[in-house]
């Protein structure tokens, strides 16, 4: 099966305030269409790992491959382009540009990519909003909609350039259980119906249990893979 993402021997140190070995020899890969979650206690390095995988953090040793291509050491402009085209990102906070409308927020990454005409981009954006059932909000300012709606707009934005992988940093962490459930279902649907790869950092055991695969981290290391049944038994 095709590997969307692969890491080889990734190590990372924090130098401030004291030298700290935060990630230790990370090796794993994610296959196309896989819905993976990363779990671990606070401070175990799971978010740090996610930002390295997202190419935003370049201060590490080891190798990172995206769709079989080495992205470690590429220049910042090239990395921006990769983030734009191949990676969709959903955060816990910082959802949207508050002064822009919902539609504009969703369209921005596509306009940056610039492969399609403005009309086509708008059409695509409306389609993504429709999938997420928030197309009626398209004209509203991003600051005027509810938290659950914001997160769905953020997912639509992550989807707009049809990325190879969607990464989420606690995407449901700030939502009530109803909305969290909703977001999970959307992810699940995208994974099943469109074969999208997903990598989600989460605290939520229930959320993780429902994903295809759980990567557990502790003290900067990935713990040996546990069968999913094991988690359920606990």
């Amino acid at each position, binding site marked *: 099966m095709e590997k969307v993402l692969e890491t080889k021997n990734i190590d990372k140190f924090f130098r401030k305030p004291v030298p700290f070995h935060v990630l230790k020899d990370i090796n794993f890969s994610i296959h196309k269409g896989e819905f993976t979650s990363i779990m671990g206690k606070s401070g175990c390095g799971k978010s740090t790992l996610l930002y390295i995988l997202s190419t935003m953090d370049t201060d590490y040793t080891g190798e990172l491959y995206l769709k079989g291509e080495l992205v470690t050491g590429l220049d910042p402009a090239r990395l921006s382009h990769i983030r734009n085209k191949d990676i969709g*990102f959903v955060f816990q906070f910082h959802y949207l540009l508050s*002064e822009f409308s919902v539609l504009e927020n969703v369209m921005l990454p596509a*306009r940056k990519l610039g492969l399609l005409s403005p009309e086509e981009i708008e059409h695509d954006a409306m389609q993504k909003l429709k999938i997420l059932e928030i197309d009626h909000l398209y004209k509203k300012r991003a600051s005027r909609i509810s938290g659950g709606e914001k997160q769905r707009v953020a997912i639509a934005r992550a989807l707009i350039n049809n990325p190879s992988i969607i990464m989420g940093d606690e995407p449901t962490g700030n939502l009530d259980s109803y909305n969290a459930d909703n977001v999970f279902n959307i992810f699940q649907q995208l994974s099943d119906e469109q074969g999208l790869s997903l990598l989600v950092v989460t605290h939520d055991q229930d959320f993780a249990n429902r994903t295809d695969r759980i990567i557990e981290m502790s003290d900067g290391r990935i713990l040996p893979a546990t069968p999913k049944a094991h988690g359920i038994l606990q």
Partner: protein
Amino acid sequence: MTRWNVILSIAKTHLLAKIKQTTTAALGVTFGIGAYITLVCFMTGLNKMLDDLILNQTPHVHIFNEIEPSEKQPVDLYQGFTEAMHVVHSIKPKQNQKRIYNALPLLHHLNGSEGVRGAIPQVQTQIFYISGAIELGGNLTGIDVMKEVALFNFDDYIVKGSPQALQQNENGILLGAGIAKKMSLQVGNRVQVSNSKGELFPLKIVGIFQSGIAELDDIQSFANLKTVQRVLGEPENYITDINLKLYDMEDAIPLAQKIERQFGLKAIDINTANAQFETGTTIRNLITYAVSITLLIVAGFGIYNILNMLIYEKMNDIAILKATGFSGKDVQLIFMSQAVIIGLVGGIAGLLMGMGLSFVIDQTPFETEALPTINTYPVNHNPTFYIIGIVFAMIATFLAGYLPSRKAKKIDPVRIIRGQ
């Protein structure tokens, strides 16, 4: 890969969302540029008027015969006393005539010289104006009036009557405004003048002359060359002064020196005659530019401040843009274009404001005894100032935008996103 339409639409949204701050920043530029345009137009207009006042009236080279003692006394020439110290008491000027010797051929020669726009003769003499029993001392200058008009804008100073009227009247006189007032004389009246020998000549007043310099207007009058020659009882080749106007004022010094050497006459160039005047112009220009540049720098700091604040407020937006694939350069361009838009809008508004103000000043009445030909404040509407103004606005806002935008470029999105 720069997508200008995306970058500009983000910049536009940011600016419109903070319309108050944007307006404040743009107004800073507007006032800076507006004040610059107004100041520069007004000051250079004033400078030009003062320049014209002096330069138009003043010949570039003034040639005359000066009465002065001989530089070498006979004792200096005697070879027997070369080793000795000479003391000569009570040196008197040499017996000399006032007229320029061989003036007509000299005029002809000067008129044909390279770089000379025109050389015109004058006859200057002291006379008395007779009013009843009162005699007022004064100067009468014989001129070729049409040439004076052509070369030295003489008509600007004729407040009543016309130069043509003088040209056509053999017995005409252009009376100084001061004398006319003292003697209660009008155009069309007659005035008697007497020469140093006491002979009386009745002259018809064809016009009133006002230079704006009261001392001059109290004594000076003009008549035709021939009239003055007749008053003096001298022939037509009697010329006391020659005034030169050159194509290039800078040639005045070497030409004056050459004439002094070649013809043994006194020749004063305009720079020597008006040395302090040039300094005044330079200093006025310096002040104008110093004030304008200060205003623009203040406006620049305003933009710098507001962009800095904007970038702090937009940290989250910057992080999101970077996370979704905008490069550092894109982010920098977003903020740079905001600065440039503020500069452009503010600058153009400033040009309009400056233009409006300078036209208002141009229409403001400014009546003064000293300047008979000026009715409103002088303003120099030179398009160059507008070009300088907008270029300076763009440079200032570009620099003011560059530093904050570079900071935005360097913001690490991970730190912002994790920091919350």
